[in-house]
């Protein structure tokens, strides 16, 4: 156990701090709602040039070209968080498509798409889930039929965040209707401006349209815009989902939210008594503090395992389930300590923090369901982590 970084890393930290002190006035003030603002794009380019984002993406594809070093990535995150500066962009194109193309794309695809995606010039959305295919994603029905050098796509996707503002989509479609369900899927990339695509906003319980539905009617996509081969889509998607699960349930975000609640409980009063002095509320805070701390140390443990290329086994499989659950419980505590004020929303008088805790309480429930539901996570933990048998398939009638 050694929680110091050592001289090489401390020298790197000094470089990051130096960058921050010289450039902090260039950080964007406006980020853009669904597409990055001009300022955000300029900031992103500056960060790439200095190896502070897209750090390990090869230079030829527009990255910085450093050797992978998970500790340096963490130092960058620590310093930017401490300085309250925005990090590099983290949209679905950068987090999911870029790693997938690097691993499985053709040279032409890498050259064409990675650099503009990293720079925030091309925005992507993910076309995976369908109304009839959620947890059982491999049952997806969106059809791609052959027509000369093209596929003709018909069907519907759902839960497509940022579809209305995206330039491109990476999309799973069924190209081989006669193959077994996992083997008939292909991964296509195509512009959202292609004729026949209709995007409808999907309003959620938060009152906002964080997602969309996307409808395809005779959408023509050249066969060459496939990643890996025909029928390889399931394999490609799993390579991508691995990257998504890493994004959900970040323990440091829970740490930040816990601090916000500690401040809230010191500032707010009921009957003139500070909420932090209320023993029952305080006990709930302490219970959550223990869980947040445990997951933060757990994160350090996984980081160490990753840096040594060791498989942490079950310790990794639990992160999405635990992390999302703790975030949800934090939001619940903030609402409860606020009493009636906790239900205020929208632009109500007496609203606290723009109603963020109710928004999180609802949105975080969405995260418990999305990216592999809690129940699917428990299947994965019990089957892959504990070696328990799969549910047998029902006998055919």
């Amino acid at each position, binding site marked *: *156990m*050694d*929680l*110091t*970084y*050592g001289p090489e*890393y401390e020298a790197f930290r000094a470089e990051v701090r130096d960058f921050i002190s010289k450039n902090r006035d260039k950080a964007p003030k406006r980020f853009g709602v669904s597409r990055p603002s001009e300022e955000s794009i300029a900031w992103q380019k500056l960060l790439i040039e200095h190896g502070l984002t897209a750090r390990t993406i090869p230079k030829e594809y527009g990255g910085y070209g450093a050797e992978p070093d998970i*500790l340096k990535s*963490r130092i960058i995150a620590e310093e930017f968080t401490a300085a309250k500066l925005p990090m590099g962009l983290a949209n679905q194109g950068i987090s999911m498509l870029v790693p997938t193309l690097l691993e499985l794309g053709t040279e032409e695809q890498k050259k064409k798409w990675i650099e503009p995606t990293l720079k925030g010039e091309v925005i992507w959305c993910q076309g995976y889930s369908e109304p009839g295919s959620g947890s059982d994603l491999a049952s997806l029905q969106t059809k791609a039929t052959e027509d000369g050098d093209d596929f003709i796509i018909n069907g519907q996707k759902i839960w497509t965040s940022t579809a209305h503002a995206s330039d491109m989509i990476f999309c799973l479609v069924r190209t081989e209707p006669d193959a077994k369900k996992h083997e008939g899927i292909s991964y296509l990339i195509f512009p959202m401006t292609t004729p026949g695509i209709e995007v409808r906003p999907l309003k959620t319980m938060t009152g906002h349209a964080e997602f969309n539905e996307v409808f395809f009617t005779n959408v023509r996509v050249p066969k060459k815009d496939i990643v890996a081969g025909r029928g390889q889509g399931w394999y490609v998607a799993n390579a991508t989902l691995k990257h998504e699960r890493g994004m959900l349930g970040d323990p440091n975000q829970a740490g930040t939210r816990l601090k916000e609640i*500690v401040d809230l409980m010191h500032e707010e009063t009921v009957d003139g008594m*500070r909420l*932090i*002095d209320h*023993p029952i509320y*305080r*006990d709930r*805070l*302490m*219970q959550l*503090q*223990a*869980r947040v*701390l*445990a*997951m933060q*140390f*757990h994160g*350090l*443990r996984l*980081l*160490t*395992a990753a*840096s040594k290329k060791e498989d942490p086994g*079950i*310790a990794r*499989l*639990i992160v999405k*389930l*635990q992390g999302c659950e703790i975030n949800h419980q934090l939001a619940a505590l903030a609402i409860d300590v606020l009493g009636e004020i906790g239900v205020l929303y929208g632009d109500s008088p007496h609203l606290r923090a723009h109603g963020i805790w109710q928004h999180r309480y609802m949105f975080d429930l969405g995260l418990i369901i999305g990216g592999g539901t809690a*129940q699917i*996570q*428990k*299947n994965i*933990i*019990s*089957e892959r*982590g*504990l*070696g*328990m*048998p*799969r*549910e*047998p398939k029902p006998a055919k009638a």
Partner: protein
Amino acid sequence: MEFGLSEDQKLLQESIGGTLDKISPLERVREAADKGETQAADIAQALAGLGVYGMMVPEAHGGLGLGLLDAALVAEMLGRHVAPAGFIATAVMAPIALAGAGSKAQQEAWLPKLASGEAKAGAAIAEAASGAREGAGVTATGGKLNGKSLFALEAEEADIIIVADKAGGLHLVKGDAKGLTEVKLTSIDLTRGLSELQFDNVEAEPLSSGDAALTLRRMIDAGRVMLAADTLGAGWMMIEKAVEYAGERKQFGRVIGSFQAVKHMCAEMASELEPCRSLIWYAGHAFDTVPEEASLMAAHAKALTSEVGRFVARTATEVHGGMGFTDLLGLHYWFKRIGLNRQMLGSPERVRHEAAALQGWVAAD
């Protein structure tokens, strides 16, 4: 940056675990419980051979001078095997008391003997750690102790007992001191020794050469981390037993472990308990190298692992169905060990209150 165990620590844990597999199987635990042995001589001897009793004793006094994280790895293995052996008082709290507040003469007299396992120590500090029940408490006047202390750990047959008085002072009392009456307390957990000590003008040596208040604090912190680690080990064993049982037991023509209702119980146990390991490791590390965080982390590790331990103990028993409720499988030894750990040295509610106070979140009365 390395948050994890060293090769030496992994080896230590493997060798303790391997030895306990052989010398503390369920049949031996059952035999010891039936006979009322909470310090089985054969197990203690094997542990002494592995240096377990000298881990926390400084090298200058014949010990290994290891840290609390190392001790937590041993405690985890003892919990895993529900070993009827002293450890928390004799190998952890007493060496901390002597090294922290003992005189040179007291250290020389007892630390080498504790390290070798030749002498055993108990600890009577429950009132300081958990609060006084039934008006218990010990007063010290003119080198004599009077009063009573409840829930002393590992005090049966101990050569010395470390006693905390009501004022927070620490004392060393011989196990055979005149005026000392030991009343055995029978708890649910027959693998651990628990006693009431009654003091009637008992001669005691003060442990007053260092900072006694800080030393008592560190005994409590260390004890809490050990109890948490013991529950971690016992809890994981219960999960493994539940998974194994669910993989064999058939109902409705298939193993019950293929039912999602059962799988999800197992997944929930594992995903609640595994983060406790990370917190316990850090609490051990903080005790050794980040003293300003030691008490807070010990409190959180104890409280969280106790809560999760209770959930695991009942859920793993439920996975075993009716068999889990019987004496036949012996699963209840783990259930009861986890139950005892929860109440000792501060219940979850109490230690969470302390954790809040440590951060300045409890207004002074």
